[in-house]
């Protein structure tokens, strides 16, 4: 069954074929989390996934990389059916996708440099000198080049997120998944992380899914929004159209987020400046 508010089918034609297709996904743990959720992401596009806590936003990301298997539905990444891949095929697919976890998930027993190096050793044939260059470059992109020899426990929350981001991009993924990239951070650090995400997307030109319940972050980084509620996609459209929706849940959600029209316009204006000033992909 498709929810009545679901207004965009994944099979609708696009100018360019979608990089990712999520089709009628359902998954339940102790109770149903997703009942029928579909979405697409095109190359170079950034999609924000919004919704209340417990609506399956993070579950969606784990389904995309095959950490969880859906009870029903299919997921396609570059026309490969993720839900049908075996362990070895999944490992190959995952090397094309970067994932920033909510708590950054840096390996405690390694320095920041070693955290990045581990990914390069596994996924590339580079020698140690070439790997070091890549590590320094990735850390420079997130302004953490001086933390290469620090342990994760020595970093602040925002720095951990940036280090996690550097680790995700060091293998040059074709798609980035962000799980609550600004949760638990102060507004200034949140804003700097959001700006960093935009900068990286502009530089690297990769597709991204940003799971968040922080609307300013979503407005800053995303081109399109998907809103999940009670297991269904209730909104799938341009970020600018989010405020225009008549959906009662969405109205309540936006109003609870205290994002009034004035602040909304300010964020959008800042976003336009940020997107136009960010460097273009090489």
């Amino acid at each position: 069954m498709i929810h009545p508010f679901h207004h965009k089918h994944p099979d609708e034609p696009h100018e360019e074929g979608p990089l990712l297709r999520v089709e009628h996904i359902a998954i339940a743990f102790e109770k149903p989390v997703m009942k029928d959720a579909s979405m697409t992401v095109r190359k170079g596009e950034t999609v924000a996934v919004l919704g209340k806590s417990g609506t399956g936003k993070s579950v969606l990301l784990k389904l995309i990389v095959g950490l969880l298997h859906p009870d029903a539905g299919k997921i396609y990444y570059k026309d490969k059916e993720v839900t049908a891949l075996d362990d070895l095929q999944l490992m190959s697919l995952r090397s094309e996708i970067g994932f920033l976890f909510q708590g950054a998930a840096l390996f405690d027993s390694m320095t920041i440099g070693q955290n990045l190096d581990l990914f390069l050793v596994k996924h590339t044939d580079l020698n140690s000198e070439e790997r070091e260059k890549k590590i320094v470059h990735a850390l420079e992109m997130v302004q953490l080049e001086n933390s290469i020899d620090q342990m994760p426990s020595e970093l602040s929350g925002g720095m951990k997120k940036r280090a996690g981001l550097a680790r995700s991009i060091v293998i040059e993924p074709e798609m980035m998944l962000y799980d609550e990239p600004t949760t638990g951070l102060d507004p200034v650090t949140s804003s700097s992380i959001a700006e960093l995400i935009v900068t990286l997307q502009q530089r690297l030109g990769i597709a991204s899914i940003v799971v968040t319940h922080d609307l300013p972050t979503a407005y800053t980084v995303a081109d399109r929004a998907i809103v999940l509620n009670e297991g269904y996609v209730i909104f799938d459209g341009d970020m600018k159209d989010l405020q225009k929706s008549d959906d009662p849940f969405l109205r309540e959600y936006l109003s609870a987020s205290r994002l009034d029209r004035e602040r909304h316009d300010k964020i959008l204006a800042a976003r336009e400046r940020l997107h136009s000033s960010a460097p273009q992909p090489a």
Partner: protein
Amino acid sequence: MAENELSSEAVQASPEAESPMVARWASSLVLLGGLWMFAMQFVRTLARPPYEFKEIVRQLNAIGYRSLSLVIVVGIVIGAVLTMQSRPTMIKFGAQAYIPVMVAISVMRELSPVLISVILAGRVGAGIGAELGSMRASEQIDAMDVAALDPYKYLVFTRVVACMIALPVLTILADFVALIGSWIVEKLDAGISISYFIHSVVDGVEFSDYLPGVAKTIFFGFTIGIVGCFEGYNSKGGTEGVGRSATDAAVTSSLLIILLDVLFVKVTLMLWPT
């Protein structure tokens, strides 16, 4: 979900079970089944080189080297206490000359392998359970999965192999220091010389007294490693789950070691009946 993780449905077995007792048994069976599958994954990983030798060495340091002082103290105490406890009885039967060999056989066959393994189940097993549990809670294991780093091979295989190497080595060390502890007591109580003590032990101890004791610690090491990793890897419920994983790892592996020991003693007696 990877095959070596237990699904939440599997852990919450038989929700409609007729009684709490039946539900507990069903849940225990599901956990044992999960543990068996987890152990079988080790065999499959063994057939898939390359191995993480650097990480195995790091784990050997954490599991083996850092347990040295504990093993030395426990070993000396085992030898000394056994000698002190047995001396009055041995004198009563006029067999005080056999104290060194009696202590050596008791220590090598049974006391040292089992006691050292149970103690290390507490130190190492709980440590592994807590470490992997906190890695699960902080999504580090998920991060490894997402990065195609094969967390089983990197985290589980390395720790289990390190346990299988460290346990026999630590047991041999414990055997040795237990004999030193025994000789010190013998020297203080009866003035026995070191050369007499060594001759007495070498003459009385046979290969069949020594080999089975050391060999079974390889399996005990496997048990400590695999149970610790299993509990940590499948940890649920955040920080509370980490504590539960550590406790369960220590309790389950200690219990399994004691149960396995019964089996090993039976096999040893079948192979070397005298």
